[in-house]
């Protein structure tokens, strides 16, 4: 690009800066305070794609989906006031799930700041608790550097969302444009070098452990440490379990992959947490959905914690050895420092636990004998139909947990789900971002009938942009996950969880999207096949058992040892 300064408007500088950062796609929605930027965008439509979503929340989730698949920052545009506030849910979601995102919001002209001008809201103040960094630009000269910093901060260290609020006068004003990427900020150390002494101390614990267990989270994916993780567990023979967001970092069929942790995770990894003598936690943050009752968690285990974020160390679970730094580097050093080992007997205990779970839960889910369809059998069929190579996007609820349990993965970066915030309405828009990030991969969006209706308008975006997302709508006519809790913990008092739903097929038809509805088992295979063979977006609505529950379950506040296999 031209490195000689040239005179451009602030708005054009925004677009030029995004191009310098390699941005290919913007998700957004225009309005008064961001119109100059949209006007500048009009001249660059060959170089940068803009996806007009149907709601700013959709833009934010789409940007998250894009970021999850590519590892690059997702970019959103929104206007001031309501446009910006509509982004907030997505920003909060990105914050808690460490997703790199750069949001650009228009703001009223700087002389009007603080006057309650039309569509003025304190976006800086509102977004502060849910951004890694935010900044208001009031003069055109600030634009290139602020954008450079925004991308650096969003994408480095533990990633997160940043927001730039640009006043209208800064968009209209002119500047001499030249761009320099940001490589460092004095007050910000994204990553510390791994301390070899800590690695040695960790290796010693690992070499001496009799019942070690590795727990990995999204940190492995963010740092692209999948191969290093595999090398470590294969050398040391340590069984590895994953958090929801760690899913897909290790192939499902890997012999040391012992399954999911936490509330609806697998039986083995949960109960074994309290039998292990060593826990090696990699890029995970001991979320309460993983730990259950903290005081009764990993009681007999020493803890080795690898993380890039110093604030995660000792936040929930005290580490005996903490290895700060990038997991790709720390895992490699750890592998080099550990002895080759095997834990056959210990690993076989996980397999035994799996057999118990299979008999009590999995078999019934996947090969039901009752009439009603289960979520598990649908998910499993769809996963098979994609040869376990698809990108799975989910919404939030029972179907999300069932999908995480039964969808299988061969490749990393194949799961897009809202973990920390549990944002219903996430799935459909996130699937758009995922599909745009990976146009050649199959994207399956598994969504509940409740969450589907939270962002259903994005069917318009899917249709307009011909995004071939395969939507699997698991319809139980309930806010299923809440109903499950009501059944188990509130004496079946189904307070406002039943849904009288619209004709979803008719709605999708209205958007020009094909689909079909399956109500009985014998039609399932053919319907799944038809969906997979269909060229373009497709809705497969499956009416499932109304009152099925997701098991196993660690009741909230209970110890992981007390995981239930049935009610």
């Amino acid at each position, binding site marked *: 690009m031209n490195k000689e300064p040239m005179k451009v408007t602030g708005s054009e500088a925004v677009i030029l800066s995004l191009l310098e950062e390699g941005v290919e796609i913007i998700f957004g929605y225009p309005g008064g305070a961001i119109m100059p930027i949209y006007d500048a965008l009009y001249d660059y439509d060959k170089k940068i794609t803009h996806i007009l979503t149907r709601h700013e929340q959709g833009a934010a989730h789409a940007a998250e989906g894009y970021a999850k698949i590519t590892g690059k920052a997702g970019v959103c545009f929104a206007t001031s006031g309501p446009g910006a506030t509509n982004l907030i849910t997505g920003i909060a979601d990105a914050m808690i799930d460490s997703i790199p995102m750069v949001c650009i919001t228009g703001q009223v002209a700087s002389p009007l700041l603080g006057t309650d001008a039309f569509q003025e809201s304190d976006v800086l*103040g509102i977004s*502060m608790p849910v951004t890694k960094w935010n900044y208001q630009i009031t003069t055109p000269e600030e634009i290139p550097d602020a954008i450079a910093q925004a991308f650096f901060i969003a994408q480095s260290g533990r990633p997160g969302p940043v927001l730039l609020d640009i006043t209208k006068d800064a968009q209209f004003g002119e500047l001499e444009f030249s761009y320099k990427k940001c490589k460092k900020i*004095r*007050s910000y150390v994204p990553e510390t070098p791994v301390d070899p002494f800590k690695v040695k101390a960790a290796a010693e614990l690992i070499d001496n452990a009799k019942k070690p267990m590795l727990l990995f989270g999204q940190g492995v994916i963010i740092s692209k440490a999948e191969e290093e993780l595999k090398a470590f567990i294969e050398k040391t023979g340590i069984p590895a379990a994953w958090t929801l967001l760690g899913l897909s970092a290790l192939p499902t069929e890997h012999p040391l992959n012992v399954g999911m942790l936490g509330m609806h995770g697998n039986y083995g990894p949960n109960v074994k947490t309290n039998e292990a003598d060593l826990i090696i936690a990699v890029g995970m943050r001991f979320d309460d959905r993983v730990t259950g009752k903290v005081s009764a968690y990993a009681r007999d285990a020493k803890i080795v914690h690898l993380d890039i974020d*110093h604030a995660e160390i000792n*936040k929930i679970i005290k580490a005996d050895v903490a290895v700060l730094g990038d997991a790709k580097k720390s895992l490699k050093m750890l592998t080099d420092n550990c002895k080759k080992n095997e834990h056959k007997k210990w690993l076989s205990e996980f397999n035994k636990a799996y057999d118990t779970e299979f008999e009590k839960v999995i078999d019934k889910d996947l090969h039901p004998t009752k009439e009603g369809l289960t979520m598990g059998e649908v998910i499993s069929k769809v996963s098979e139909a994609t040869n376990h190579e698809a990108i799975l996007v989910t919404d939030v609820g029972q179907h999300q947990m069932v999908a995480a349990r039964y969808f299988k993965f061969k490749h990393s970066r194949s799961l897009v789900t809202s973990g920390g915030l549990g944002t219903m309405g996430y799935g459909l828009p996130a699937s758009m971002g995922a599909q745009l990030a990976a146009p050649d991969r199959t994207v399956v969006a598994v969504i509940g009938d409740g969450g589907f209706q939270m962002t259903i308008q994005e069917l318009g975006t899917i249709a307009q942009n011909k995004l071939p997302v395969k939507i699997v709508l698991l319809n139980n006519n309930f806010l299923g996950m809440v109903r499950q809790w009501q059944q188990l913990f509130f004496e079946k008092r189904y307070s406002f969880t039943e849904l009288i739903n619209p004709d979803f097929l008719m709605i999708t038809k209205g958007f020009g999207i094909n689909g079909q509805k399956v109500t009985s088992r014998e039609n399932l295979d053919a319907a799944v096949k038809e969906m997979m063979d269909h060229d373009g977006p497709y809705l497969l609505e499956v009416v499932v058992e109304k009152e099925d529950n997701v098991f196993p379950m660690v009741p909230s506040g209970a110890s992981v040892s007390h995981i239930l296999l049935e009610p």
Partner: protein
Amino acid sequence: MKQEFNITVFSENHIGLLARITIVFTRRKINIESLTVSESAISGVYKFTIVIKTTEDQVKKVVSQIEKIVDVLKAFYHTNQELIYQEIALYKVPTDALYDSDQIENIVRNSGARILEITREFTVIEKTGHKEETQALFEQLNQFKVMQFIRSGRVALTRDPIERLSEFLKERDAFLNSMD
């Protein structure tokens, strides 16, 4: 066990940073007992002194979260014993009371306070010290009806011979350069 902790934060001078820092406390429902902000010995670097009552476990986590803020250079915490600290208090009393007896003058002298300004209506007394001391003076002066009273946030120094900030900044710059 809860006790008083002094959190010191060194930061760049950015709009909104104070709000970002206070969010760390409000989110955890920790009350800020006192807060002072001013430019440090190094131009452009600001120093926050924040006093909270909490447990050591909690203060460690809070300091970690503050240090995570992009524009924060460094954050520390200290117990009161580890610091030399002062607050300043101003007291406005009616000048009449000063003339009626020499009691006020004695109180001022004995408490190491000083008189800042005398007008016909009021006299302003200043005292620096710990909260218990400035509070004790308030109680004494209040027999003469204190008209106005104000106490500042805390300023504090560590018992180290020098402020480590400039060394820290040098190390930080060297570290960042080494990452290139």
